[in-house]
């Protein structure tokens, strides 16, 4: 293994950005305000786009540049815009959503990162590129998003968590295999976009049927549907 300080600057930048994506995931976990959560998610998309572009430049892959552009336009601009718009229509933009104390969740998140690192270690040997160390981080982003999914009560923030989970999977694809084939990439991107739109419709459905976006309200069975 090369010394870290002897790596080219671009690879150091890739690894630094990878660590920043992990930090943004933890920040998402701790953030309780709806609008700030969406904004953080947009920043995570920006980081992901930059890291994809850097990997593309590092290995000289033009297709990866396209998927970086796709990430930027979709995950950093379109989906956050859509979510903010819907949150504003539903009048929950300034709401806060935290069921457990953020400090406690953060510590759980830290433990989860350690767990991911120890799980990934045997796999890392097979990935040969400079980004192989980031595999643990991408798994951690996925796991942290799952933790966020189960600690949130509002539908909007759960959707953000779901999208962040997709970010983690994309990050894993970029770091392990230098990106999936462009066809797959386009298909997934389209799916995510459609999912965002459908979620938007669901927000209104949920609110209309139970009068709030609090998922905890959904545990009771009601026959009449009033």
């Amino acid at each position, binding site marked *: 293994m090369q010394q870290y300080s002897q790596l080219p600057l671009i690879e150091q930048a890739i690894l630094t950005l990878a660590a920043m994506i992990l930090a943004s995931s933890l920040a998402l976990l701790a953030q309780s305000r709806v609008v700030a959560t969406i904004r953080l998610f947009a920043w995570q998309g920006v980081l992901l786009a930059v890291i994809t572009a850097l990997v593309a430049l590092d290995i000289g892959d033009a297709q990866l540049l396209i998927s970086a552009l796709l990430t930027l336009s979709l995950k950093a601009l379109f989906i956050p815009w859509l979510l903010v718009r819907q949150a504003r229509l539903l009048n929950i933009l300034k709401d806060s959503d935290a069921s457990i104390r953020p*400090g406690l969740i953060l510590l759980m*998140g830290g433990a989860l990162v350690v767990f991911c690192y120890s799980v990934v270690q045997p796999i890392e040997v097979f990935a040969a590129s400079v980004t192989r160390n980031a595999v643990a981080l991408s798994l951690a982003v996925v796991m942290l998003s799952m933790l966020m999914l189960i600690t949130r009560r509002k539908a909007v923030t759960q959707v953000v968590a779901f999208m962040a989970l997709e970010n983690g999977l994309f990050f894993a694809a970029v770091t392990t295999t230098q990106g999936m084939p462009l066809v797959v990439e386009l298909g997934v991107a389209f799916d995510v976009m459609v999912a965002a739109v459908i979620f938007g419709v669901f927000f209104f459905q949920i609110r209309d049927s139970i009068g709030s976006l609090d998922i905890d309200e959904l545990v009771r069975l009601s026959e009449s549907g009033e």
Partner: protein
Amino acid sequence: MNAPGWILVILQTGLVVLAAPLYAGWIKRVKALLQNRTPPPYLQPYRDLRKLFAKEIVLAETTSAIFRIAPYIVLGAAVLAMSVVPLIALDLPVTAVADAVVLVGLLALGRFFLALAGLDAGTVFGGMGASREMMVASLAEPAMLMVIFTLAMVASSTNLSTVIMHTLITPLALRPSVIFALIALVMVAIAETGRIPVDNPATHLELTMIHEAMILEYSGRHLAMMELAAQLKLLLYSVLIVNLFFPWGMALTQAPASVEIAMAAIFAKLAILGTLLAIGETAVAKMRVFRVPTFLAIAFTVALVGMLSFIILEAG
């Protein structure tokens, strides 16, 4: 014995003790300018201290000896901690004890006696301040140690001089661990030195004060020493931040020329950091006391991410 080295150590420590009020005054000045107030003169903190030293001491009847010796221990621990931190030169006789864990211990000693003194008079505010201070400390100390461990792993040593030397001699690398350690250390420093948003050093508001509540019973010389110790602690954290993360300009040898450059460099770096701190304090509102644990949990997590990213990404 290395006589010139020891002279430099004493000179450096004396300079720091003299400069600490100036640094606190500088931050006050920048803040006042930013808030469209007339700034106090540079010498104002010195005048305050001189006035306090000249005043008589009033002791509460309920206090014990601890109340009287605490200012000396608090100030002594702060001065000792300050002499351990590499300020201008690296090649000094004290580098042997310039260990980060020792530093944390010295700070804890000072804080312990500060909290004891707060409890000693038996007033409500003293006890409240002491309990809050210990709450902040118990959460900030792990984060601080995590930062130190991260730096120690990068440099393979907990000695502050070795850490700084390592940064100076190895080629410059973009290290995620160091970036996160810097963010975490800044957060810990804000909490430990009682600045906004954790505590407001400029007010005696009953509900929110932490540090001011503990020293409420002090007067005269004792109060001056407590104030000086707090100013020293602020300077100490600032020096730690600038010298651990931006050590360029520090003197590697005891040659007069390089020491002069290092003096100019540390003055410039501290002036910039002080300005940034003042801007931050102007822009941010003080948070509720019950939000402080979350703030420090974030600091701890950032430090943890720094350490993990060293293990996962950099150690290979």
